[in-house]
């Protein structure tokens, strides 16, 4: 296996919960609680989980919008976690992000041209003419009309706006793009167009993606491997085909069972998951999933399960789950 482009090791992001007169930290919210993963060059890792499981927080830690509490973020071997804003700046060219909501993530007061030119200005790339040429090239790459550069974000549809966001992310020729639910805010009819654009760009530019989503069908379409997150931890990580064909963790099974099937005659058992995600401020002891797990035993209530390989013997790829049992 080639050296990973990104390796996250035991990443924790704990937010203080402040209270009282002096705003002391009275508790911590363990949004990301010990996550390890790798992304190889050119690979797409899907990251799936319910709202509030910490998947966006993980993405924001990797691009260092947040400073992680502990853990390492090794990008091409260099640890991003302790770096200052200034030390990070040159590395940011390699590591970009596409945001969920293209309305919010574009400055309404900048034209598309200004928005796309900004990364080039920040990193001092090219003179004004070269930058303008690059902006035009980017617009063509993401399938926007050439006249778009003088227009403002509100003049575009949701899908087009997300194309602007994607163009901004690839402007600096990054190696890794964190995609934080890039199509969740779009109409279903537009989603596939934007996804295909991203896949095309990945092939052309050799990008790696960390693709964060809560829609398993979307993730299946784009990912090489998929990680399932629950309450700040990864509970299952395997090849995309593998995880859909042979889910091993009870949580993954519940998620897959919840995918609607476009067949009116087919009757599925009702979703086996009961209850809500517990609060990450007071996560349950033992396996974080045990209060909702149909197979929970006494051991699950006390012992934390760690990721272990459960791949079929002779398989070339790994399949890890965080569960005490082989169900």
């Amino acid at each position, binding site marked *: 296996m080639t050296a990973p482009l990104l390796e996250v090791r035991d990443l924790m992001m704990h937010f203080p919960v402040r209270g009282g007169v002096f705003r002391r930290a009275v508790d911590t919210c363990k949004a990301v609680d010990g996550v390890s993963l790798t992304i190889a060059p050119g690979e797409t890792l899907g990251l799936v989980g319910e709202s509030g499981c910490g998947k966006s927080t993980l993405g924001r830690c990797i691009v260092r919008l947040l400073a992680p509490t502990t853990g390492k973020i090794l990008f091409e071997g260099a640890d991003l976690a302790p770096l200052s804003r200034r030390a990070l700046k040159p590395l940011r060219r390699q590591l970009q992000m596409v945001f969920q909501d293209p309305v919010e993530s574009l400055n309404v007061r900048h034209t598309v041209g200004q928005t796309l030119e900004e990364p080039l200005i920040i990193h001092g790339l090219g003179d004004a003419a070269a930058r303008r040429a690059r902006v035009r090239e980017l617009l063509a790459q993401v399938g926007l009309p050439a006249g778009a550069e003088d227009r*403002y974000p509100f003049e575009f549809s949701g899908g087009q706006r997300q194309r602007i966001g994607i163009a901004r992310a690839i402007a600096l020729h990054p190696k890794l793009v964190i995609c934080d639910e890039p199509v969740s805010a779009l109409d279903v009819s537009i989603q596939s167009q934007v996804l295909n654009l991203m896949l095309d760009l990945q092939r052309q530019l050799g990008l790696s993606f960390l693709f964060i989503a809560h829609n398993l069908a979307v993730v299946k379409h784009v990912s090489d491997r998929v990680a399932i997150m629950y309450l700040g931890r990864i509970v299952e990580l395997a090849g995309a085909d593998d995880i859909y064909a042979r889910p091993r963790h009870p949580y993954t099974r519940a998620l897959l069972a919840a995918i609607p099937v476009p067949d009116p005659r087919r009757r599925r058992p009702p979703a086996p998951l009961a209850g809500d995600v517990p609060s990450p401020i007071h996560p349950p002891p033992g396996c974080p999933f045990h209060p909702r797990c149909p197979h929970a035993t006494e051991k699950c209530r006390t012992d934390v399960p760690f990721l272990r390989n459960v791949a079929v013997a002779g398989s070339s790829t790994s399949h890890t789950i965080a569960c005490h049992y082989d169900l």
Partner: protein
Amino acid sequence: MHFTPQTLRQLRRFRHLRRGWWSFLALTALTVLALVGELVVNNRALVVRYQGQWHFPTYGAQLTGNAFGLGYDYEPDYRELQRQFRTAGSGDFVLLPPVPYSPNEIDVPAGAKPTRPPGWESRHYLGTDTIGRDILARLFYGFRVALVVSLSFLTGTYLLGIALGCAMGWFGGWFDLAMQRIIEAWSNLPFLLIVMIISAALRPTQPVLITVFIAFSWMAMTYYMRTGVYREKAREYVAAAEVLGASPARIIFRHILPNLLSTLITFVPFTIAGAIELLTALDFLGFGIPPPTPSWGELLRQGTQNLNAPWIVTSAFGALVLVLLLVSFVGEAIREAFDPKKFTYYQ
């Protein structure tokens, strides 16, 4: 100047608010008039034609009586000169500004009282004050002083308020907390008392007075900027800029401040009105800009002390009400036009 469509829509809306738009035009006209005040209110002639030669005494070196064959080397009284040329009827003439008096010029004809009512004949269209100075001229130049003071005040309070407010919002935490407490303490200093002490201790020139005004008035703007920066920096477009590697200065000046423009513009007219009121009040109490600088507050005081010459207080009061009303109308229209609730991008 490059406007975003959002700003253009706000400006269009502002133009459609009739009262505010006309007030804005009237105020602009008054301001332009004040800028070229020497052409409108002045005791030096605009044009003098004397023995085939043209003179333009308004701007330029001071001319002496010798230039017009009057046989003395101090400045001629152009009103008198005009009368002489008219009676001589030799083709020489003097063209005076519409109001041929200077604000500090005392015009008391022999045998007349210094305080004279308005009159067309005397060309004191609003009368004279208690020592014989033309009230219209003093109002006019008083307006210019008020403009200079209020615009400097605006610039100063905005610069200080924006800089500190942005820093508080951006850094947050202990810095914000400490600054808030300092600002609260500073806001509670009795401003009027301090100005009185300063005025009593040293002769307050215009720059000193403006500095004191600013020093005690920048606090309000920090609150708006602080909350604005807090709000904007939590938004996704700021995160996007940060991921690109933008510096804090770039984020604040290129991203956050343009998005807070509505707040800044909305407060401009009210700040100006506040400054004019403040200056007038201090001048009224005698702690403002020292005489003989023309000032509305000083005219108001004269007027209230000499109610037997009602034209003084009427003129000063009328001018003050007119200007403040115009500024308030403009402010009201701007507030309406730039109302973020009307132009929101949150759906």
